[in-house]
């Protein structure tokens, strides 16, 4: 683990330092909530031109949060965590919004459905 990080740091240190550091930074807000990043596509795209200045519609690539955290099992009992992947009305957020990879989305889907069944998550919120 330690030497892996060590080997990565020097290679990026030369020229891609700014680019490398901007990536994890941008994945933070994207992971924080899928929807805001999409609604705020303008500001998100605005971050692109600041660096590259090429395209207005450039959207930063979303990274699967579960892959980043190296999660192999999504626990249906962690309702607070699952809540982040559900709309206000209780719908499961699609992959294109959250950036979850297909495998983790599959597991997530299963976990959300289990949590709903035992009243940890709502099927549809009453409004």
């Amino acid at each position, binding site marked *: 683990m330690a030497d892996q990080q060590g*080997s990565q740091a020097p290679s990026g240190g030369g020229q891609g330092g700014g680019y490398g550091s901007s990536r994890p930074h941008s994945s933070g807000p994207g992971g924080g909530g899928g929807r805001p990043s999409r609604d705020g596509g303008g500001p998100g795209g605005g971050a692109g031109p600041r660096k590259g200045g090429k395209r207005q519609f450039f959207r930063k690539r979303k990274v699967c949060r579960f892959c980043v955290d190296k999660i192999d099992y999504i626990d249906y009992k962690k309702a607070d965590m699952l809540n982040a992947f559900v709309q206000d009305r209780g719908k499961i957020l699609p992959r294109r919004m959250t950036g979850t990879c297909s495998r983790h989305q599959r597991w997530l889907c299963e976990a959300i459905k289990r949590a709903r069944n*035992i009243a940890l998550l709502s099927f549809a919120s009453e409004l």
Partner: protein
Amino acid sequence: MEERLYDLIFICRPATPEDEIAKIMKTLEQVIADHKGTIVKNENWGTKRLAYRVAKNREGIFIYLQIISTDGEIVKELERRLKVFEPVIKYQTVRLDEEMKLQKKLVARRELKLSRKPRRTAPPAAAAPAAPMAPPAPPAEPAPAAS
């Protein structure tokens, strides 16, 4: 016979007295013992808000059990008992051992990958002009860089 891992959660009415829950637990333990199962985890999550109304209740007492058993009939029996208990408003049993097996496999694969990774990342690091910066970092790096 292979062992199977089950998660069992049941919800009681919020007004259920402690001794009533203890009685239910005792019965369940008896059933588990009869089927030669073992309780791995036993947690009382206390009163929690339900995400939706269940039997006109907005809150419920959550009790979580994790069971290992070789006998599949245990689930049938536990659920039958839970259905009979009046204070229990909801229950769910989930079989988890296959997912745990997959998780173990993935963890093992990741460790294998990690142990193999330095070799794979070394060539680009050596090819890049960052080579002079490499030596201070890891002891494994200088060898490919020198070659």
